[in-house]
């Protein structure tokens, strides 16, 4: 299917790349469909792009190689699922660039979980008070 994105112009995306977010993401509940896009210019960041609001795309990062302890913050049963499916489920955290110096931070408080097999995703909020919405990356 053809998709027009603000970031990459027109893309040809296989239907099975589309991920459904039944609850959207927090603050953007109307954004029910997303695609994950990789481009080596942006590595290690990946793009999560909304098919509902074309201008809405944000950078995401898989946190675990960067912050191994982060696993402990997830409910046990969910973490088991993430580990067992090996590629079926993935966790992303949203990246923010801020200020003149474009400081990079990661939202550890509200991770996004994607199930590639069910083609479904959602953003959850982790309970630990220690987790920041703007964990510095540099």
């Amino acid at each position, binding site marked *: 299917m053809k998709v027009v994105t603000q*970031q990459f112009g027109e893309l040809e995306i296989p239907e099975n790349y589309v991920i459904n977010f039944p609850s959207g*993401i*927090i*603050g*953007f509940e109307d954004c029910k469909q997303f695609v994950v896009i990789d481009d080596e*210019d*942006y*590595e*290690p*960041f990946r793009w999560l792009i909304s098919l509902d609001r074309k*201008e*809405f*795309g*944000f*950078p995401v990062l898989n946190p675990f190689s960067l912050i191994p302890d982060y696993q402990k913050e997830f409910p046990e049963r969910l973490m088991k699922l993430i580990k067992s499916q090996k590629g079926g489920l993935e966790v992303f955290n*949203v*990246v*923010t*660039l*801020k200020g003149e110096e*474009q400081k*990079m931070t990661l*939202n550890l*408080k*509200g991770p996004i979980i994607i199930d590639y097999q069910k083609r479904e995703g959602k*953003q*959850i*909020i982790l309970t630990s008070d220690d987790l920041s*919405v*703007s964990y510095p*990356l*540099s």
Partner: protein
Amino acid sequence: MLVLTRKLGENILVGDDIIIKVINIDNHRVQIGIQAPSAISIYRMELVEKVKEQNHSSIIKKKHDLIQAARKLRKLWRVA
């Protein structure tokens, strides 16, 4: 919005399967218990607002900014 007044120990049924219980009242704080199917998320509102705000500020306006940031991060990781 429906506003109900409850005493300690009194409950409220929402829909078919959500129960809200007044567990403890103490000075200016009330301890509320919520029983709901696990598929239903329950979050303190201020956390939702925080994440919402962060999502909003993450929208990338200029791709170039992200390319720069990516280069920076790759560099950092190589050195580390």
